[in-house]
């Protein structure tokens, strides 16, 4: 660790409370998976999440039976909840990659306590996101047409369209996130293999560990691969939401056709992603007594990232409004007016309150160090970011160039059931993850201990 960095840390809360050894760190994290019995609270939480997931499957089953007519999408609003939720979930995933890859390159060692479950969050969020474009295509059983495969029809995808770019960006992102997560788990799987007393668990963890034995040669190649993967994931994560924003920005719809979209989408993605990290980290550290590993420093740093990205998002809103006026384009100007005073003014003002005004409380140190306040604030930001995507998708589409083609969008209960169901799926996966895999990277926590430092 950098001496200079250490000095700045020492004045604040530590990355890890002192007094731990390699053994106690290992025992504490692996005990959650290996010895701790599942509590009633876990079963209740998992049960509720699982039921919500079943509700989603029911809603999707009915959709396959009846078609997209059961949703609120109509012309002119052909992109309803499905695209809103897709962008929202993909954005949430971004914080996981930012924590695991970008903070690794920046040598921010505090990431070691939160990268594992943040990466899990990324994977599950991308899984939730991936559902929506698939079921939105109208004939979901033909969704594989999105991929270039040699078909009997002889045609290929249309590579000049951002929608096909998105297919590649999101599937690459899902693959690389899964690989990054898996490679990080290998040494910890070896730890669980050696600690597990249950023979089935030992065999399963043993297979997942790939026979890892911690050889110095292996560690050397491992670290090289991990670092290179971080270097590859860094431009990737920035590109994914950029490409998502191209889905809009390349179109000529007023409110979509702007160059501010890529940076402002990426900032918004990290904003909502850190809010989700906090919403998960705060209960996890409390319930599993991990306050020594996920300290006040982590909460504060996440809060600062949210404050910074929130301000970038606010700048994006400001530029949108400014360009609406400065461009002199009557349709652009009308889009801004319509957001502020049109039929969807309530969601737009709620968005401004949730994403810009309330998060300014993060300037106050007391807010940044209070877990309860941060938890509530993160919830507000997640709602705000969902509203942002709703405004971008729905409000831009519902009134475009011709008044004769104006319309309104009203989500149906099937829209809501699918959306809330994906939250259930996300949480159900998270509950299982906490019980089956180490939620904190054990080997990376060992490297934070002073005993891990070696003099030449």
């Amino acid at each position, binding site marked *: 660790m950098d001496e200079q960095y250490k000095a700045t840390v020492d004045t604040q809360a530590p990355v890890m409370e002192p007094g731990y050894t390699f053994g106690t760190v290992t025992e504490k994290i692996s005990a959650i998976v290996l010895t701790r019995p599942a509590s009633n609270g876990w079963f209740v939480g998992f049960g509720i999440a699982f039921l919500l997931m079943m509700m989603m499957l029911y809603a999707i089953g009915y959709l396959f039976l009846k078609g997209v007519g059961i949703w609120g999408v109509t012309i002119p609003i052909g992109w309803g909840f499905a695209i809103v939720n897709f962008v929202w979930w993909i954005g949430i995933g971004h914080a996981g990659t930012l924590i695991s890859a970008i903070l690794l390159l920046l040598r921010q060692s505090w990431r070691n306590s939160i990268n594992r479950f943040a990466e899990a969050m990324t994977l599950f969020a991308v899984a939730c996101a991936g559902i929506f474009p698939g079921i939105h295509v109208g004939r979901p059983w033909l969704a594989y047409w999105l991929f270039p495969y040699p078909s009997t029809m002889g045609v290929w995808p249309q590579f000049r369209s951002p929608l096909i770019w998105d297919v590649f960006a999101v599937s690459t992102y899902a693959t690389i996130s899964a690989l990054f997560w898996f490679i990080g788990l290998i*040494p910890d799987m070896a730890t669980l293999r050696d600690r597990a007393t249950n023979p089935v668990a030992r065999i399963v963890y043993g297979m997942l560990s790939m026979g890892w034995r911690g050889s110095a040669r292996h560690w050397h190649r491992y670290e090289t691969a991990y670092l290179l993967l971080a270097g590859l*994931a860094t431009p990737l994560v920035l590109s994914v939401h950029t490409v998502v924003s191209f889905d809009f920005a390349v179109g000529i719809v007023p409110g979509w056709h702007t160059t501010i979209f890529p940076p402002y989408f990426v900032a918004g993605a990290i904003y909502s992603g850190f809010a989700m990290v906090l919403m998960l980290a705060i209960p996890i550290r409390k319930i599993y007594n991990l306050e020594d590993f996920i300290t006040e420093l982590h909460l504060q740093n996440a809060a600062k990232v949210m404050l910074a990205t929130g301000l970038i998002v606010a700048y994006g809103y400001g530029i949108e409004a400014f360009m609406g006026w400065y461009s002199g384009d009557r349709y652009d100007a009308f889009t801004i007016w319509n957001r502020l005073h049109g039929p969807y003014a309530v969601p737009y003002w709620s968005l401004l309150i949730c994403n810009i005004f309330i998060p300014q409380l993060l300037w106050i140190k007391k807010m940044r160090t209070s877990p309860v306040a941060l938890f509530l604030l993160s919830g507000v930001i997640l709602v705000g970011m969902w509203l942002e995507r709703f405004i971008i998708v729905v409000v831009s589409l519902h009134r475009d160039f011709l008044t004769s083609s104006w319309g309104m969008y009203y989500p149906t209960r099937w829209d809501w059931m699918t959306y809330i169901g994906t939250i259930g799926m996300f949480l159900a996966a998270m509950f299982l993850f906490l019980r089956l895999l180490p939620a904190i990277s054990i080997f990376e926590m060992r490297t934070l201990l002073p005993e*891990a430092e*070696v003099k030449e």
Partner: protein
Amino acid sequence: MKRGPVYGIMAEFDSAQALVDAAKRTHQAGYQKIDAYSPFPIEGLAEEIGFYRDEVPLVVLIGGIVGGLTGYLMQYWMSAVDYPLNIGGKPYHSWPSFIVITFEMTILFAGISAVFGMLALNGLPMPYHPVFNVPRFSSASKDRFFLIVFSSDPKYDPAATRGFLQDLKPRSISEVPS
């Protein structure tokens, strides 16, 4: 203990520092075929046991180049050669539109090469390995540090090597059956 030839002699240490020092002395003493095991990556340890050739970056570079070429040529061939489609009057070979997928394919191939290249170069997955026969070795994934001299080392001699390792003040010494 199982019968058969010995795989090597293994010494157990308490700290990362002790392992690095021991590895350095063993390597300096002329032992070539040695390995060190630790519960987390230790900077410089691989160099101490004489490991310098890390081919992972080369694998990733090749993977990335192959991925980028695949991505671009795929789009070119599909859009301009195999089934040219006129989309909004744009040229068949609209290279600026092909950049995004070229980039994504570069990252995809390079990332897959990094993970599977690392595993392949490490000879993983390998569910069985002689070192696992040492009962104390299960601590190598927790808080203990191990150094092994393989019996294939030209300088290996059961008694002398054991004596040499004993001088390094390890916590314990075990013979690894193969």
